[in-house]
């Protein structure tokens, strides 16, 4: 099997962005039709971040992801078919249907897991980086998180541990302007200056930089600096990618009448679509070929997902313990 993504060329990166975009659009439809239960946090609009950062990684490098994690997982090379099967809760899913959208993981690819708790992936990533450093391996670990996570204590503690132990970890903040409805600018003091994520990270001794998160090539360049610093023993970095989610916080939001973002603001960001930006680097005709191939891939993914069986209720407690301990059931008569 060829790798599901190849991020080594601009065309490959365009294709990955397109794949994530269309995967997410398909997921929106599947939420509506009830194939995906519980909804998702769409990544649409932020694709250049996942793709640009993962393009700077090697296969053995690792990532931790977030509640809005589909893009990261796919960009790190997860099979879209098994990813979709996971979202549909099927046994063929990455997590055998046990994790769903917020917990997708593929340890064989270094995807240590999405996470339902904001900021919680960072110390796990630091732990993987710590293990890599101890082992003398030149693996690098990237932890993705949103602007909301900048105010989670555990993330801030982790910055310091990573700094003092010089861990090969890159902290990638996707600042999409909001934590649910809370404007990122209102969650820190003096957002552009002394209270920004970059200033804050620098205060922990981390090399810190902000980059245009709508431009995969710019993200790639900045991520490469940070990743190679980590790989070369230079320790952790903070990279803030300025981006935007085109959809609501969660699919559920479509049913609510929220006013925290103006239509004008959304439109202005849509004009900076990372997909269009990436397409500018393609040669004549390439886009159509890639797009068609992506559709075929996703059609096959959907077919795979729908053909994969639902798990048997009798297996609900399977995998609760790694040693096979079987928990007492909830009724014993």
């Amino acid at each position, binding site marked *: 099997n060829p790798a599901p993504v190849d991020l080594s060329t601009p065309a490959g990166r365009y294709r990955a962005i397109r794949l994530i975009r269309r995967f997410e659009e398909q997921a929106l439809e599947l939420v509506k039709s009830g194939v995906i239960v519980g909804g998702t946090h769409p990544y649409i609009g932020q694709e250049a971040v996942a793709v640009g950062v993962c393009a700077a990684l090697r296969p053995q490098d690792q990532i931790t992801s977030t509640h809005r994690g589909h893009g990261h997982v796919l960009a790190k090379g997860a099979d879209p078919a098994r990813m979709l099967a996971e979202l549909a809760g099927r046994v063929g899913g990455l997590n055998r249907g046990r994790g769903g959208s917020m917990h997708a993981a593929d340890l064989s690819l270094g995807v240590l897991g999405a996470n339902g708790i904001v900021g919680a992936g960072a110390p796990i990533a630091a732990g993987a980086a710590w293990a890599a450093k101890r082992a003398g391996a030149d693996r690098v670990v990237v932890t993705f998180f949103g602007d909301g996570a900048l105010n989670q204590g555990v993330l801030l503690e982790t910055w310091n541990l990573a700094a003092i132990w010089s861990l090969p970890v890159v902290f990638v903040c996707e600042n999409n302007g909001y934590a649910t409805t*809370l404007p990122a600018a209102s969650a820190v003091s003096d957002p552009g200056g002394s209270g920004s994520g970059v200033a804050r990270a620098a205060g922990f001794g981390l090399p810190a930089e902000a980059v245009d998160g709508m431009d995969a090539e710019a993200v790639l360049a900045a991520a490469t600096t940070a990743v190679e610093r980590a790989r070369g023993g230079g320790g952790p970095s903070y990279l803030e990618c300025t981006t935007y989610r085109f959809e609501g916080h969660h699919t559920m939001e479509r049913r609510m009448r929220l006013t925290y973002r103006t239509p004008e603001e959304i439109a202005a960001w849509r004009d900076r679509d990372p997909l269009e930006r990436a397409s500018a680097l393609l040669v004549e005709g390439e886009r159509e070929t890639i797009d068609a191939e992506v559709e075929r891939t996703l059609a096959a993914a959907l077919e795979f997902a729908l053909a994969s069986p639902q798990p048997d209720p009798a297996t609900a*407690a399977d995998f609760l313990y790694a040693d096979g301990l079987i928990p007492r059931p909830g009724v014993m008569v």
Partner: protein
Amino acid sequence: MSWLSYLKALNKALDNALATDESVVVLGEDVGAGMSGVTLGLQAKFGPDRVVDTPLSEQAFTSLAVGAALSGLRPVIEFQIPSLLFLTFEQIANQAHKLHLMTGGQASVPVTYLVPGSGSRAGWAGQHSDQPHGLLAHVGIKTVVPATPTDAYGLLTSAIYDPDPVVVFAPAAALGVREDVTAPLEPVPLGSARIHRQGTDVTLVAVGQSVHAALAVAEEFAAEGVDVEVFDPRCVYPFDWVALERSLAKTGRLAVIDDANRYGGLAAEVLAVAAETAHLTAPPVRVTRPDGAVLPFALALDQAMQPDAEQLRRALRTVLK
């Protein structure tokens, strides 16, 4: 006569408390937008200083509420996820709960922690589906799990005015319950049980959404001539042991349905007390989640981890033998 939903009842309780008492403030994520529904419209009505949007710093704002409470405020904190109680367990169990005793009675901490959407939300998977009232009760924090809109209103109101920390769980599966409310809404004292259905053959203890499952199964059994008493403690802690004793004295049989982990939860405590003090005619039974349950994502598995009506029927049949 008017139909009141559980969610709206919580909203009304907050609305009323904010309107009648200046010291009441609501803090949490997206409370301004009313994402969970509980605070809908309240920021517009009372302003962003009474209904306060917070950054994602649960630990800090949970203890900030302690400091505010020491200064005379009555903060209500909304948590978007039940497991945020894990994240803030230090602040709740080690600080808020302990301060009154540790200061020799100087400090009281009237903070309410409101968790709308506890238990399974169907498809939110392992980290969003906990029902940890047993943890709070073990630590000794006042903990309520209302089953109906009037109780949701009444218990949340009492929680806000209680001088101690109180956790209010509003199970996701109960938020849609509607009730035809005829009497005026009133506070419901903490620690007082409610008998939803009188019965003589078996006492069936349930809280939250399980009360409705219990009532439905009780009706089925009534058709077969079995008279089930549906006993809702409402408060997991402090528990209304006097009312339970009275019920058990009448029925002599006990079943508990509790959508929480089996080991050491509410159901375990009820069985333990019954074993110590009641002279039961038959061994009691529990219907719970399995030990150490983590709800898997796939809907069929998620549901298989929770107690269901069929398990309850089986349990009742056993205890009635």
